[in-house]
């Protein structure tokens, strides 16, 4: 030990080395002091910047709500009360970056599973990584490709895009019929990203199967700033109902322009922009009565979903709900596997059914994955805006209110 350091009272090299060594070693040392079980790392990869940031934040909120509930109730019982530790990261809007983020969480944080990433393209990119590294990925993205590749580590809690699109049409026809109205001609308008395109395909299939004439079928660029050409075309088309699949900006533009041109035909939205609070805030009274398909809705289990509204101040939007369910299912799988190892959890998820807890908020009151990872119990629901709230109006067995068909 050099004289100078002991005189100045500074750190001697030996102390510094010893201190650094213990600091480096501490994660490797099992904390035997307390009865604290090692927390379970769960990755949450959402778009937190870019155009989908709002949805990413909603999703994260849903997950955090459930994580906190579980942790407060004592953590994961099968692992000795291990707490859930959410590792949240920004997927950005580039799929390749989302994949790199997933790889980082897997390698550096040793996550047991990943939840994410709202947008199908991001989810697909992440799934390419998780499938190769055998980490389970739970999602509410619904592009058909997600469960269509024979991957073993992907688990989707809602119905597929084609099913949602088809339901968007089928339910409408049923509701119209129940009100004594027959629809022969419909118009489809959709924003041209993966989401709009996939759902429009489902709509088309539904209409074709019912032999209904599609008099207008137009994609539009996502950032469209002037929808008058679309609405002009709609007016001239002779359609009796219009099925727009949009995000928020375009949904507001479309509905407002329709109003300006005094087009009163029913509009049945395709989820996304049509089922968030901002839709109603933007349109006020003109949101009343607008129908939309949705993968899930909060009024199916108000005792659970009202907790979200209490904490965050707005109703539990479907992406928040579905992610909450996903986390609940994941934790149930961890309990079932009695292990936080990714492959054990994946095995517990595969082809399994989960009930109780937040799964009650999904249609069928439970979640059951088939061999492709799809939740076969999830059925889309038709919701309608009533006094600033979304009320489920179809199918009849889950409806909380009667569908009001405004012609």
């Amino acid at each position, binding site marked *: 030990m050099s004289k100078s350091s002991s005189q100045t009272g500074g750190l001697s090299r030996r102390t510094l080395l010893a201190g650094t060594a213990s600091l480096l070693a501490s994660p490797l040392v099992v904390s035997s002091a307390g009865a604290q079980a090692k927390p379970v790392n769960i990755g949450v990869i959402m778009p937190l910047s*870019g155009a989908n940031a709002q949805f990413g934040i909603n999703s994260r909120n849903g997950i955090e709500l459930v994580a906190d509930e579980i942790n407060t109730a004592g953590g994961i019982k099968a692992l000795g009360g291990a707490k859930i530790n959410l590792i949240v990261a920004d997927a950005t809007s580039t799929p390749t970056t989302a994949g790199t983020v997933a790889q980082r969480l897997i390698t550096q944080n040793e996550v047991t599973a990943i939840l994410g990433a709202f947008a199908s393209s991001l989810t697909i990119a992440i799934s390419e990584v998780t499938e190769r590294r055998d980490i389970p990925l739970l999602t509410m993205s619904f592009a058909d490709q997600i469960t269509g590749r024979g991957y073993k580590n992907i688990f989707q809690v809602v119905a597929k895009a084609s099913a949602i699109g088809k339901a968007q049409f089928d339910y409408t026809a049923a509701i119209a019929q129940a009100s004594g109205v027959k629809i022969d001609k419909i118009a489809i308008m959709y924003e041209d990203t993966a989401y709009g395109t996939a759902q429009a395909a489902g709509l088309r299939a539904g209409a074709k199967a019912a032999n209904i004439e599609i008099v207008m079928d*137009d*994609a*539009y660029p996502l950032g469209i*700033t002037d929808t008058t050409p679309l609405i002009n075309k709609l007016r001239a088309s002779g359609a009796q109902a219009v099925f727009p699949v949009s995000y*928020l900006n375009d949904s507001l533009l479309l509905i407002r322009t329709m*109003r300006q041109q005094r087009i009163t035909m029913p509009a049945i939205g395709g989820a996304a922009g049509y089922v968030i609070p901002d839709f109603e*805030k933007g349109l006020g009274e003109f949101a009343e009565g607008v129908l939309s398909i949705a993968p899930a809705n909060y009024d199916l289990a108000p005792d659970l979903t009202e907790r979200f509204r209490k904490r965050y101040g707005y109703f539990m939007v479907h992406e928040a709900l579905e992610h909450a369910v996903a986390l609940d299912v994941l934790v149930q799988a961890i309990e079932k596997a009695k292990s936080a190892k990714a492959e054990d959890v994946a095995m517990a998820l595969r082809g399994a059914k989960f009930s109780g807890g937040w799964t009650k908020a999904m249609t069928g009151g439970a979640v059951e994955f088939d061999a492709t990872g799809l939740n076969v119990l999830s059925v889309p629901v038709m919701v309608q805006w009533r006094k600033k709230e979304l009320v489920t109006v179809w199918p009849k067995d889950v409806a909380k209110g009667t569908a009001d068909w405004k012609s």
Partner: protein
Amino acid sequence: MSFLQAILDGLLVGGVYAVISIGLTLVYGVMGIVNFAQAEFLMIGMFVAWFAWAYLGLDPVLAAPLSFAVAFGIGWLVQGQLIARVLKAPSVAQIFLTVGLLIVLENGSLLLFGSQFRSVTTSYQTMSLSLGPLFISVPYLIAFGMSLACGLALWWFMRTSWFGRAMRATAQNPMAAQLMGIDTALMYKIAFALGVGLTAFGGAVILPYVTVFPGVGGQFVVLMFTVVVLGGLGSVAGAVVGGLAVGVIQALSSLFFPIQLQNLFLFLVFILVLAIRPQGLVGASR
């Protein structure tokens, strides 16, 4: 019939495109710099107007002068501190300075304001006037009117005021202007600040029908650049002509081609003009 409606809609919307784009062309005309961050000032103008609506209850159209003022101030600082330093630098440095500015402004507003989409509700948003069988959207009409007023004000300023003439002189020949006693550095500041201020003004005016979020500038970049290139980079009259032309082209193309290809059409026009007549419809051959 739909032809006439399309032309009418195109002209209304085009007037707004003109006001948004005048700033871009003014900046290029006076300083020779394409401000790639111009659309971000549109976003700034929209946010200012939104906050004025949310907290002061001001109609966005009335808040437009406020948007102008805020953007003018920011533009003044940006020009003095950043743009001025690259006026003599190679074009690659100029391009990337404004590209960097674009990213800074967009992400800065993401950090400050968050990602959610904000829209305003006004009494006239869903109203329209009838001109025979034609519809005239009231928000578009008001936006067009404001744009016209703004355009006339700019024209009057450039024609009659000393500053306006000094700026035109600087644009024509900076050396000669300096020799005449014009403080060209000041002119550049005014031109830039005025340019971004005008774009911000346009932003406030379109807020009734466009939702604002940090990335909204990206939706208008194509339009703005097509407008100024079509009209002629550097020509204010060209921006007006270009704006109206782009509005009408966009509306008419939707009659004959899928709406999804709207932007493609604009890009092709853009490229054709650059290839065949880079000085645009109105601009003089340089």
